[in-house]
């Protein structure tokens, strides 16, 4: 299933690309894409894994781009 999240503080396109790559490598994420212009992140994952995956995603964001946050 596909989930869309809004991000905040995504200041550079290169960072968005790095973040996209890092999140795409998380186990359980089958596809991830981040649009720098709209600051939206789309993640594809299994419904039952969502909670665990999102925890990892947030951790990855904190690690790769500490200035960026996920709006809930």
């Amino acid at each position, binding site marked *: 299933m596909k989930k869309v999240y809004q991000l905040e*503080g995504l*200041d*550079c*396109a*290169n960072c968005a*690309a790095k973040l996209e790559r890092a999140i795409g490598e998380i186990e359980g994420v089958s596809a991830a*894409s981040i*649009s*720098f*212009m*709209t*600051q*939206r992140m*789309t993640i594809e994952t299994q419904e039952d894994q969502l909670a665990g995956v999102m925890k990892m995603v947030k951790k990855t964001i904190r*690690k790769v781009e*500490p200035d960026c946050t996920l709006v809930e």
Partner: protein
Amino acid sequence: MTRKQKRMLVRIGAGAVIFAAAMLLPLEGLWRLGIFLAAYGVTGWDVLWRAVRNIARGKIFDENFLMSIATVGAFVLGEYPEGVAVMLFYQVGEWFQGYAVHRSRRSIAELMDIRPDYANVERDGQTLRVDPEEVAIGETILVKPGEKIPLDGEVIQGSSTLDTAALTGESLPREAEPGAEVLSGCINGGGLLRIRVTKHFGESTVSKILEMVENASSKKARSENFITRFAKYYTPVVVIAAALLAVVPPLVVPGAQFSEWVHRALIFLVISCPCALVISVPMSFFGGIGGASRQGILVKGSNYLEMLAQSEIVVLDKTGTLTKGNFQVTEVRPEDGTDKEALLEWAAYAECYSSHPIALSLRRAYGRELEPGRVDAPEEAAGRGLTAKVDGHLVAAGNRKMMEEMGLSPKGTDPVGTVVHVAVDGTYRGRIVISDEIKEDARQAMEELKRVGVQRTVMLTGDAPAVAEDVAKKLAIDEVYAGLLPLGKVEKVEELWRQKSKNGRLAFVGDGINDAPVLSRADIGIAMGGLGSDAAIEAADIVIMDDKPSRLATAIKISKKTVRIVRENIVFALGVKAVILALGALGIAGMWLAVFADVGVAFLAILNAMRALRPVK
């Protein structure tokens, strides 16, 4: 400006004031160092902090680190003013860059501002204001004058005109009256409408459009991928070059100062940041896609926009794409002694009980209300036409064969199209020509295509060759292939595709109804009249929301402009950087110029990228 940007602006201002004071006050020794450090700290503490944080995470060569090293290095060498000034300049550049990104994000968001915020739904005799997502199919919503229609539906009460500009870029208003289908995203004009919802919000036109444009950036263009690949090699290459620059000359060149060359290497690194490219290239494509959607052209990905700029062969379907797909009386040719009006009247009455498209077009052309009482004994002659008694006269309306069977021989040849001959009481009275109408802007559209660089225009149709040739001639289309079955169209497109040059692209334009296989076979599949047709939105790469073929040339113009902007930015950014890198290595360019090559170039490239948003003429 965001809050963060305002705060940053205050910090830059404060830093600049302290810096000015430090330059003017006649201070000595530690006091002097103290005041410069204060200016430096106010301006750049976050850069230092990020540099430290990133090193802790094993990421060394980022901008923050480079700026920190360069400015701290200046302080160590005793060049306090340079340390502060470079940091100040860097922050100003970063601020402008952030501001430009913010501005462009906002203008793109404005373009996309067709999402309705609420729906007035009628429940239990009350009107409630709810989120459009909460409205179920079959519920009734109320749309007041000036409001956006939140969900697709059917008008059950009220009449009004709708502004569809946000969806189609077309300012001509559409009529809405009971029974009419209306689309979400349109703005209601003067009347109050009650609408029965026929689609969930997620399936409604407005959601589909937004989803498509927002996801468009995930299909990356070749030049975007080029930049990503480029950045991967570029950064390590520059870092290695900088390291060599710092180490080799002092060892090889006699009398070369180690500190001098380290300084040059630092400058080298600051210049090298690929930010200008990494930001501006995707931004240009996004701007192009956003600007196109404003003109009623939906592009599903940057790659399609890039390919469209290279269109060499444009293949068009006839019916529904170049012609309106509805039959219309295009010519009335009475025999001498009969007037046009009377001929139409007889034909319309003779066919007044038929529901055939030809009968419908005759009645439409006649234009007046029919009085069924005047018609008696209508009879159909299969494959020939119809006869009926109208006001007591025997009227026959049908093809040539029918006339010949009645012993009449219409003189002259019949023009192209469907011809209805009319005889009254056994006397031949004239003919009416019915044909599919060519769209008003079709001819202009074909001329424009040639002007924007398309080499060949080709028309495919299942229609008879005579009709097809006629349309092609009127529109100045290069080639025609008529009498094709759907499978034949696919084969023809494949054949044409093999004829194009290596870098050229083949675009197919259809109305999306039964063109799906051809749309997917072409390099770029373009569907016309996407408004309300889900099939077209699914199958095509580019959707033209209204029915106008002239939008094709507009789309190509937008794509060419976008691609040109992307090239300009790549050449400009790399060019400036190459020059300043060379100057830096020779010791001519100082830290100032280096900072300009980094943030200044990025800022200018962003400004240029924003041009892609503006509409093309």
